[in-house]
């Protein structure tokens, strides 16, 4: 298979945002605690829910940044 891939099909530095979000949620020592609780919700839960929102924003950023 010859390498005639377009400019926007190779590596983009914006993909590092994906690595950040993957590490942030797959390393339980970052978030396995009750405190600091927020509105009575233990850290373990609100941290991960917050990352759902951050990951959506990151993905949108990557989408717009890597559009041709």
């Amino acid at each position, binding site marked *: 298979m010859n390498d005639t891939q377009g400019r926007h099909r190779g590596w983009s530095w914006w993909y590092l945002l994906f690595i950040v979000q993957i590490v942030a949620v797959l390393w339980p020592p970052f978030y396995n605690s009750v405190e600091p609780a927020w509105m*009575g919700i233990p850290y373990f839960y609100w941290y991960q829910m917050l*990352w759902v929102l951050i*990951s959506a924003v990151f*993905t949108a950023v990557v989408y717009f940044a890597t559009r041709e």
Partner: protein
Amino acid sequence: MQGVNWTALTIFVILFLFVSWLGFAAARWRRGDLDQLHEWGLGGRRFGTVITWFLVGGDLYTAYTFVAVPALAFGTGALAFFAVPYTIVIYPILFLVFPRLWHVCHKRGYITAGDFVKGRFGNRWLALAISITGIVATMPYIALQLVGIQVVVGALGISGTGFMGELPLLIAFVVLAAFTYSSGLRAPASIAVVKDLLIYITAFTAVIVIPMQLGGFGKIFAAIPPAKLILAPPGAHTTGAYSAYATLALGSALALFLYPHSLTGILSASSGKAIRRNAAMLPGYTFMLGLLALLGFFAIAAGVKEMPEYAAGFKQFSNNFAVPALLLHSFPSWFVGIAFAAIAIGALVPAAIMSIAAANLYTRNIHREFINPNPSAREESQIAKWVSLIVKVGALAFILLVPTKYAIQLQLLGGIWIIQTLPAVMLGTYTRWFNSWALLVGWGVGTIAGTWMAIAANLTPTFPLNFGHLVLPGYSAFYTVLLNLVLVLVLTPVFNALGSRAGSDETLASDYFA
């Protein structure tokens, strides 16, 4: 259990009738020639960003998920929340890999993963292995969707033994089978819109109203035993719950888009752009899933397990009854009807897509490849329609004849099996460096090793891997796909040196992007 809840049942039946009508009417939506397999089985690849969002969301976040994840939180605690990192990690994968797969499938007319692997690696036996794995892994998944229906029907107060007890499930099943047969993928795509709206209404209402009834989140979490609240910190010489949690999330994420029904949902999109946009929009469902997982804790705090009126339900459905019991306890009957309809309709969407996906695999990669190489377009779509029926009858028979726990255990094994197709399908979109026979050996060894690990762990997902004097408990699917990959990497040069000429690659580099 108390008697039949007539108000809830009436609302439930009305909503069910509505989506049934929608399923049949969908045949005329974005009209196409349903005698073509890509029209029946992929909706003509015409779904834009919004419909894809509903369809893939309805496909991946199934009724069983909405019952089982809170049930796991209810019974086990924090571990259940692995569903959140799991469904965060899937979206970078969706963004990076699947637009490429969509483009090549669109350009070459591929409908299944088996089609792609056959074209990419030119090895029909590898394609057969991938296709059989897909079908086998999907069957118990369909069966579990029917369990979701069983639980809510039971919770509506319809109980009974023998034929009368199973009648509601049979009716739901006949309706499902009929509209899938007549409308193909258009049916679940249109129903998914209704289903998701109902699920969102239920989830947000529950997460706002129930904490108000129970005195706030602080009180709810205070009622949870400390051992369930967070993961147990690992002791000496083990990574304990941490590695279990992380590998469950990562392994499940790697496996998810390899399931035939995920691929069917993705391939029905109208463009690679629609898929990339969805990678940013689908986390909306992850957020809702996280909220629903918390319902398991609400159920603990509400104390539904100790209430005599729910004892029979817990006895029959064990912890899967936690969410229905909580909803019955917290809401008026009319809202319970809406919520239960959301769960039951939530089962129809993925069950329909799964049976279509399995039918596409059989038709394209087994029947056409090994039995009748030149079917007409009409014959091909006829075969697929019939296979979609057979697959569903099999799932129904399984649920009626065999204890539910076997379906759950088989679904666990299904995850271990399907992930073994990762090197050929996912990595195959980036490279065809792999020798196809090395891929086949990696698949076979991974499947056997994974099955063995699951059995050795008493059919639970995590296996305690010994590494020197360190114990690494982790998801068997994740460990065995690593083994599979190592084998593929080592054996590829070996098979190449032995002169095994891989088949030709009919795809071009330019097939993989717009």
